[in-house]
């Protein structure tokens, strides 16, 4: 009987997958699929696009795992690939538009579900709405930092701007959000 890998550390799974263990890869993928999907959905504002982006990302993750230097940090690295693929997809969908100017619908389908709305706290719903009012570029930068945990340098590379500009956008996003959230302190 094959050993149970569901308790194995991320680093163990990443090392095994890098050496060709497809089963370890599947366990790793299933473990982080929820977060990958949530991240891609927030970046693309579309469940269908998110599913495509995560699929592309999964194949790329498999392909590039042998080059990963720190297997223990595989989760953050996976998230970086998800955002790379999400941005590729957004650009492909609207080749003419500058991705930073692109206005995507801000409401995520997940949050229209009444049952789910009832479950989430009022403050969380307020944050969701405040996020929806941010300019798309600011929202994406905020998402990459807060959901994806990505570095300023990676965010700058993805958005084609500078670290200074990213930090500025992030600060403006946080200022708007904290201002809007004042009622919920």
């Amino acid at each position, binding site marked *: 009987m*094959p*050993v149970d890998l*569901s*308790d*194995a*550390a*991320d*680093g*163990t799974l990443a*090392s*095994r997958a890098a*050496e*060709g*263990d*497809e089963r370890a*890869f599947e366990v790793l*993928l*299933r*473990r982080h699929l*929820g*977060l990958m*999907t*949530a*991240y891609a*959905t927030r970046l693309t504002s579309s469940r269908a696009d998110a599913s495509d982006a995560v*699929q592309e990302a*999964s*194949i790329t993750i*498999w392909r590039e795992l*042998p080059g990963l230097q720190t297997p223990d*940090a595989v*989760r*953050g690295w996976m*998230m970086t690939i998800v955002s790379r693929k999400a941005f590729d997809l957004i650009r492909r969908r609207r080749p003419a538009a500058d991705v930073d100017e692109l206005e995507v619908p801000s409401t995520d389908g997940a949050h229209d*579900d009444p049952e*789910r709305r009832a479950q*989430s*706290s009022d403050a*969380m719903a307020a*944050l969701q709405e405040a996020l929806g009012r941010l300019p798309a570029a600011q929202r994406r930068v905020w998402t990459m*930092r*807060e*959901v*994806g*945990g*990505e*570095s*300023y*340098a990676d965010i700058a590379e993805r958005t084609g701007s500078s*670290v*200074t500009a990213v*930090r*500025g956008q992030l*600060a403006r996003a*946080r*200022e708007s*959000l*904290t201002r809007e*959230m*004042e009622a919920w302190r």
Partner: protein
Amino acid sequence: MSDPTHPSPAVQPTDDLAAGAAGGPEALTDAGTVSTERLADYLDSGREPYDPLIEDDPACLAQLVALERLRALSSELVESDVETAPAPDPSWIAGVMDRVRLESRTGRDIPLASPDVRSTVHITEGAVRSLVREAGDSVPGAVVVSCGLAGDVGIADAPIRVDVAVSVVYGADLRHVADLVREAVAAALARQTEIVVEALDVTVRDVHLGAREAGQ
């Protein structure tokens, strides 16, 4: 983040407080004299080292608390995204795994002796690694992390060094488990390949908990 009451983002930011030095013109908040960027960096570093300019200024402190609260809510929002996401479609997973198998990592070809001199038979490096994993995993308390084959694996009878790294369950006798792994791997290689094993090293790379330690 040393303080467990400080909520962390879904994924820990990896980096780059140093980027603050490159800061450029920083917008000041209406509240105080310290920019939001600097307050956020201070939060990222777990409010260390203690910064009296921030901690002693009520307006800064209020904004710091607001940022902290925002971060906690953001984590909650992502957690709830993950929890309420529909279960992955089995056909979606199957599709990904099909594509993965199309790109399986076979590695180098390792020759096997053939009774017929006109033909050659090979076993792939990938198959040998798989064999090593299976043998090592069969030892209770051991999970193989990696397996390296060093030497001219493409040449028959060339001496090969095999390095196996394992994770061992917490509480087990590391030396004993490592010895069992070495025996199991040696037996499997002898039984199913013709590799001349010059050295077989087992390294305990990690200790894992029997219960879930996933994600860390």
